[in-house]
C-alpha cells in the first residue's frame, strides 16, 4: 500500500460509522445528522402539506361539512406549527449542519454529540405533534397560540399542553444547533479562509444561528410561562387577576417575526450560491449581499409589533414598527438587485436549480410588496387577519423559502447521494408548483378584500366567497401534484439516476472538493484557502498543514477573523448518550403534559444521561471507539 492508501484506511477507521441499528443510533457524523434533519423535515413538510390539502377541501365550498370546527382548528394549528417549527427551522438547520463543515473545509461540526442530541429532540417533538393529531388532542389555538384562549379556562383539554411541550423541544433543538453552527463557522474554517473569503451561504447560516440565539429566548420564556399557567396556576397571562393577555403576544412575536427571516436568510443564501454557479461568474456584490443579510438579521428584531397593530397599541409605537417593517425592503431589494445583476452579466444555464431560484425572485417580490402594504398601519387594520395576509405570507414563505430550498435540494442532491436528480422531472416539478402555487394563493388576496377572515372552518354561501375558494383549492391540488413529482424524481433517481462526480456543476465552493457523497472524514487533507471561490482558481488546492494524526478525529482550529491556523482539536466518536439524554428530556416534557411530577422524576434521568455523556474517560484521544 502507498502511504496515501494507508492514510485513507486509517481515516476511514477513525471516522467509522458503527454498523447495525444500535450503531445507527450512535452515529454523530455531521453529514449523517444533516441528512436526517433534511429527510425528517421534508417528511413533516409533506405531512403538513396534506393537512393544508384537507383545509382546502373543507373550504372549497360554503358550509361544507367535511371536517367540523374542532378538527379544523387542530388541523390548521398543526399545519402552521409543523411548517414553521418542524419544516422551516429544521430544514435550514439540516442544510447548515450538512453543508457548513464541507463548505468551510473542516471534518465535522464542533460538538458532534450535541448535533445528534438536537436531532433526536427534534424528532421526538415532531412525532409528538403529529401523534397528538392522530389522537385528536392536537393543539387547536393556532401556531401563535394566543392567550387567554390557550389558558386552562378556555382550553380544558390536553391540546395546548401538547403545544407547549412541542415548541419546547424545538427550542432546545434549535438552540443546540445554532450554538454549534456558530462555533463551527467561527473557529473551524480552513486555514486562510478569512471572514471575507467565507462563502455567502455560510454567512447566511451564521446570521441565522445568531438570530436563533437571540429570538428563541422570547418564546422559551413565553412557553414556560404558559406551561406554568396551565400546570400550576401561575397567572402571568390571566387579566382577571392582574396578568396580561398582550404579554404573550410580545414574547411570541419577538421570536415569531425573526423566525420568518431565520427561514428566509438561509434560503436567500442558497439563491446567492446557486445563481452564480449557473451563471458562470462570481456573485455580483458579494459584500453588499452579506451586509444585507446582516442588516435583515438586525432589523428583523425591530418589527414584531406589526403583528399587533390592531391591539390598541398607541399610534406612536405603531409608527416606529411600521417604518422598521418597511425598511426590510431595502436589504431585500439589494439582494434582488445583485441576483439580477449576476444573471445579467453571466451566461446562465437553465438547470432546475436555477429555475427554482428565478421563480423565487418573482414570487418573493410579490410577497414582499404585499408585506410593505401591510406594514402600513391603516392598510393593515383592514387586511390584518384576513386571507390577504394568508396570501402574503404564503408568497413569502413558499416563494421565499420553499422555492429556494427545493432549488438547493436539486443543486446539492448529487453531493448528498452521488446521483443527479432528473432534470426533465425537475422542470415539471418546478412549473407545476409555480402554476399551482399562484392559482392556489393569488385568489386569497381578493378573498381578503372580500372580508374573509383567517382561521375560519366554514363560511356562509351569501358571503360569495365560494368561487374563489374553489379556484384556490384546485390550485392547491395542482401544487400538491407538483410536489409529488419531486418524490417520483427521488425514486427514479435512486434507481436510474446519472452518477455525479465530485463537482458535477463545476461549482466554486469547497463542498464540491469532497467526494459525492463525502467520506466520513470529508477531506483527505484540510486545504489552504486563498479565495472566495477556491475551486475556480487556476491553482490546485494545497494541504494547509502536514502531520495531522489520522488515527483519531482531528480537526483544525483557526482564528475567527483571519482564519490563521491556531490549533488542532480532537472530536469525540460515536456514542449512545445523546439518544439517552433526548429520551430523558422527552419524558420530562411529554410527561409534564399529564403531571408536573414527570418533570421532577425525569430530572434524575437527565442527570444520569449527562453523567454518562461527560464521563471523564476520553477514549477517542487514543483513537479508540467508546
Amino acid at each position, binding site marked *: 500500500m502507498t502511504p496515501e492508501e494507508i492514510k485513507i484506511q486509517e481515516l476511514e477507521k477513525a471516522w467509522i460509522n458503527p454498523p447495525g441499528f444500535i450503531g445507527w443510533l450512535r452515529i454523530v457524523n455531521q453529514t449523517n445528522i444533516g441528512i436526517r434533519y433534511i429527510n425528517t423535515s421534508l417528511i413533516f413538510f409533506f405531512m403538513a402539506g396534506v393537512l393544508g390539502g384537507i383545509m382546502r377541501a373543507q373550504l372549497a365550498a360554503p358550509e361544507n361539512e367535511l371536517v367540523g370546527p374542532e378538527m379544523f382548528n387542530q388541523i390548521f394549528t398543526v399545519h402552521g406549527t409543523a411548517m414553521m417549527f418542524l419544516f422551516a427551522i429544521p430544514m435550514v438547520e439540516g442544510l447548515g449542519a450538512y453543508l457548513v463543515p464541507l463548505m468551510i473545509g473542516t471534518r465535522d461540526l464542533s460538538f458532534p454529540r450535541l448535533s445528534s442530541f438536537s436531532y433526536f429532540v427534534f424528532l421526538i417533538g415532531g412525532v409528538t405533534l403529529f401523534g397528538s393529531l392522530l389522537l385528536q388532542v392536537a393543539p387547536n389555538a393556532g401556531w401563535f397560540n394566543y392567550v387567554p384562549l390557550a389558558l386552562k379556562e378556555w382550553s380544558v383539554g390536553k391540546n395546548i399542553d401538547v403545544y407547549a411541550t412541542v415548541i419546547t423541544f424545538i427550542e432546545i433543538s434549535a438552540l443546540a444547533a445554532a450554538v454549534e453552527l456558530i462555533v463551527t463557522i467561527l473557529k473551524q474554517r480552513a486555514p486562510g479562509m478569512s471572514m471575507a473569503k467565507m462563502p455567502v451561504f455560510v454567512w447566511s447560516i451564521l446570521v441565522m444561528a445568531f438570530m436563533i440565539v437571540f429570538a428563541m429566548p422570547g418564546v422559551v420564556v413565553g412557553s414556560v410561562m404558559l406551561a406554568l399557567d396551565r400546570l400550576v396556576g401561575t397567572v402571568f397571562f390571566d387579566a382577571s387577576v392582574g396578568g396580561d393577555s398582550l404579554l404573550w403576544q410580545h414574547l411570541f412575536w419577538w421570536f415569531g417575526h425573526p423566525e420568518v427571516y431565520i427561514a428566509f436568510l438561509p434560503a436567500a443564501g442558497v439563491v446567492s450560491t446557486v445563481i452564480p454557479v449557473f451563471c458562470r461568474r462570481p456573485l455580483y456584490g458579494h459584500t453588499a449581499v452579506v451586509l444585507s443579510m446582516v442588516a435583515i438579521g438586525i432589523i428583523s428584531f425591530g418589527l414584531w409589533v406589526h403583528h399587533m397593530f390592531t391591539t390598541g397599541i398607541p399610534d406612536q409605537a405603531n409608527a416606529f414598527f411600521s417604518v422598521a417593517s418597511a425598511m426590510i425592503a431595502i436589504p431585500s431589494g439589494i439582494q434582488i438587485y445583485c441576483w439580477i445583476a449576476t444573471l445579467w452579466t453571466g451566461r446562465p444555464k437553465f438547470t432546475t436549480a436555477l429555475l427554482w431560484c428565478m421563480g423565487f425572485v418573482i414570487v418573493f417580490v410579490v410577497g414582499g410588496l404585499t408585506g410593505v402594504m401591510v406594514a402600513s398601519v391603516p392598510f393593515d387594520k383592514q387586511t390584518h387577519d384576513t386571507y390577504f395576509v394568508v396570501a402574503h405570507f404564503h408568497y413569502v414563505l413558499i416563494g421565499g423559502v420553499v422555492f429556494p430550498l427545493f432549488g438547493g435540494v436539486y443543486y446539492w442532491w448529487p453531493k448528498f447521494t452521488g446521483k443527479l436528480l432528473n432534470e426533465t422531472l425537475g422542470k415539471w416539478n418546478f412549473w407545476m408548483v409555480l402554476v399551482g402555487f399562484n392559482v392556489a394563493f393569488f385568489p386569497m388576496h*381578493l378573498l381578503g378584500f*372580500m*372580508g374573509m377572515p383567517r382561521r375560519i372552518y366554514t363560511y356562509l354561501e351569501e358571503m360569495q366567497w365560494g368561487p374563489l375558494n374553489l379556484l384556490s383549492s384546485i390550485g392547491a391540488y395542482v401544487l400538491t401534484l407538483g410536489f409529488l413529482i419531486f418524490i417520483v424524481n427521488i425514486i427514479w433517481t435512486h434507481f436510474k439516476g446519472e452518477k455525479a462526480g465530485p463537482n458535477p456543476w463545476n461549482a466554486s465552493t469547497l463542498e464540491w472538493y469532497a467526494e459525492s457523497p463525502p467520506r466520513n472524514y470529508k477531506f483527505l487533507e484540510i486545504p489552504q484557502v486563498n479565495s472566495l471561490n477556491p475551486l475556480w482558481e487556476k491553482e490546485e488546492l494545497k494541504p494547509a498543514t502536514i502531520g495531522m494524526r489520522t488515527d483519531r478525529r482531528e480537526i483544525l482550529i483557526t482564528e475567527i477573523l483571519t482564519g490563521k491556523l491556531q490549533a488542532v482539536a480532537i472530536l469525540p466518536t460515536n456514542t449512545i448518550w445523546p439518544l439517552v439524554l433526548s429520551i430523558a428530556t422527552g419524558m420530562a416534557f411529554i410527561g409534564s403534559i399529564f403531571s408536573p411530577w414527570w418533570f421532577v422524576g425525569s430530572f434524575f434521568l437527565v442527570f444520569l444521561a449527562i453523567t454518562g455523556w461527560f464521563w471523564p474517560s476520553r477514549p477517542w484521544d487514543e483513537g479508540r471507539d467508546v
Partner: protein
Amino acid sequence: MKFGSTLLLILTLLFSSCVGEQNFFAGKGPQSHEIIKLWWTLFGIASFVTVTVSFFLVRGALKKNRDDSVNDEALGKGLVYGLIGTISLLLVIIFSTLRLGHPPEYSEGNFELKVVGKMWWWQAHYYDPEGNYLFETANEIVIPTGRPIRIKLVSDTVIHSFWVPALAGKVDMLPGRENFLVVKADEEGVFRGQCAEFCGTQHALMSFYVKAVSEDQFSKWKEKQGKKYKRIKSHALGERVFINSGCVKCHTIRGLGVATDAKYYGPDLTHFGSRSHIAAATYPNNKGHLGGWILDPQGAKPGNYMPATPLSGKELNALLEFLEALK
C-alpha cells in the same frame, strides 16, 4: 392605447370579483374610503415594481447579447440609484399613510356604545351622551349616520376583534384592556361585521350587523329598545315554555321578572323580534330557522354554548310566537 384598455379590462375583471357583504371596496365611511384610495396607490407602486423586477430578471436571463458592455462599475451605480429610489418610495409610503384611516373629529370622553366580545357573539351596551347606561342588545348594532360615534371595545372572555370592513379597520377586544374605535357612516345602510381574531370553536360564524339610520330613527330605535317586556295574554304558553325549558337561564328578557344565571350569559332577547338575524348573524330571523336553531343548535354551529332544547310541536310553536313577538 390598446395596452391601456387591456390593462383596464384585466383590472376590472380582477377586482369586480370582489363582491359580497363584507367587501372592503364597498366602503361607506370616511376611514374605509381613505384606505381604498391608499390601496390603489400601493397597488400601483407594487405593480410597477413587480413588472420592473420581472422584466429585468427575465431579460437578464434570456438576452442573447452577452458582450461585456455592462460592467460591475455600471452595476454599482445602478445599485446606488436603485437604493435611493427604494428608500424615498418607502418613506413616502410610510409617512403619507401614518395619518390615514384615522377617525373623524370626535369629542374625547364619553362613548355611546360599548361592545363586549363573547363566546361567540357580540353584546352591545348603549349609553346616552351624558354617559348614563340605557340598555343592552346583541349581534345587531344601530348607529346614526352623519356623525362620528365612539365605541368602547372590551372582552371578558378571550381576544376577539371588532371589524366592519365597510366602516373602518379592525380593533381587537382584549380581556383586561379597553380599546376605542370611532366610526362614521356617511349613508344609511346595513353593514356586516365579523370577528377577525381567532377565538375558538365558533370563530368562523361570529358575525354581526351594523345598521346605520338617520339620527331621528336612531333616537326612536333607542327609545323602543329601552322599553321592558310587556306581557301579552295570547303568548302566555310561550312565555311559560321560555321560563320552564331553561331558556331563561342564559337569556334575559327585561321585565320578565326571572333572573338569569350570571355564569351562563347568552344574548339579551328583550327585543329579539326586531332583529333581522339569529345566531350571531348566521341565519335570517324567521320561525323556520329559529325553530331549527332551538331544537338543534349544535348541528348548526357545533361547539357553541347553547344546548339543544327538546320541545313538543305545540310548545315550540308557542315559544316561536312568543319570541317573534318581542319587537
